[in-house]
């Protein structure tokens, strides 16, 4: 299964990084970022399959396309914020990672405003 490959790569990267940290070379930090990128790019293929299904879902008339496009954008924001926040946290800068996560939340909140408005409109029309 693909999962074994991802776990294997993660373990190998962990061993190499710990070894590089033990010889206290300052190359351990870029190596953590690089292994994070490799693991994320492995999961990217699954994400594109899911998104193609998601797009075909938007074809029927109940769900108009704009809401689905927004949810896909929110998914992308969370994907990027999670990657960068965990990379920054690896460097030991917890406060900056929290700020990145906070900024991501604010962005998602502003993007989801039309969805909330749509929800309210549908509920009011039902009453």
């Amino acid at each position, binding site marked *: 299964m693909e999962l074994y490959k991802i776990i294997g*790569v993660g373990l*190998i*990267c962990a061993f*190499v990084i710990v*070894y*590089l940290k033990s*010889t206290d*070379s*300052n*190359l*351990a930090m*870029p*190596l953590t*970022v*690089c*292994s994070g*990128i*490799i693991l*994320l*790019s*492995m999961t*990217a293929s699954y*994400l*594109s399959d899911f*998104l193609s299904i998601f797009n075909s879902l938007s074809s029927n008339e109940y769900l108009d396309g704009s809401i689905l496009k927004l949810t*896909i*954008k929110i*998914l*992308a924001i969370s*994907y*990027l914020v999670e*990657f960068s926040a965990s990379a920054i946290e690896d460097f030991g800068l917890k406060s900056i990672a929290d700020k990145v996560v906070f900024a991501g939340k604010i962005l998602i909140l502003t993007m989801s405003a039309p969805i909330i408005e749509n929800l309210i409109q549908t509920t009011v029309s039902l009453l």
Partner: protein
Amino acid sequence: MNVEIIFKIAAIGILITVLCQILKKSDRDDIATLVSLAGLIIVLTVVIGMVADLFESIKDIFNLY
């Protein structure tokens, strides 16, 4: 995008540490700092290229803007 990049960077790291040790023993500390700086720059360019590829692939997947 597979594991060989990890081993390349690890090899660079080990090589740099060994070189720095040798240079420090033969009391050429200034060259040792230059060598470690060079290694860091090489690895940083590789990693920045990979970050750019990651953001590009994410943009393609989510077909944003």
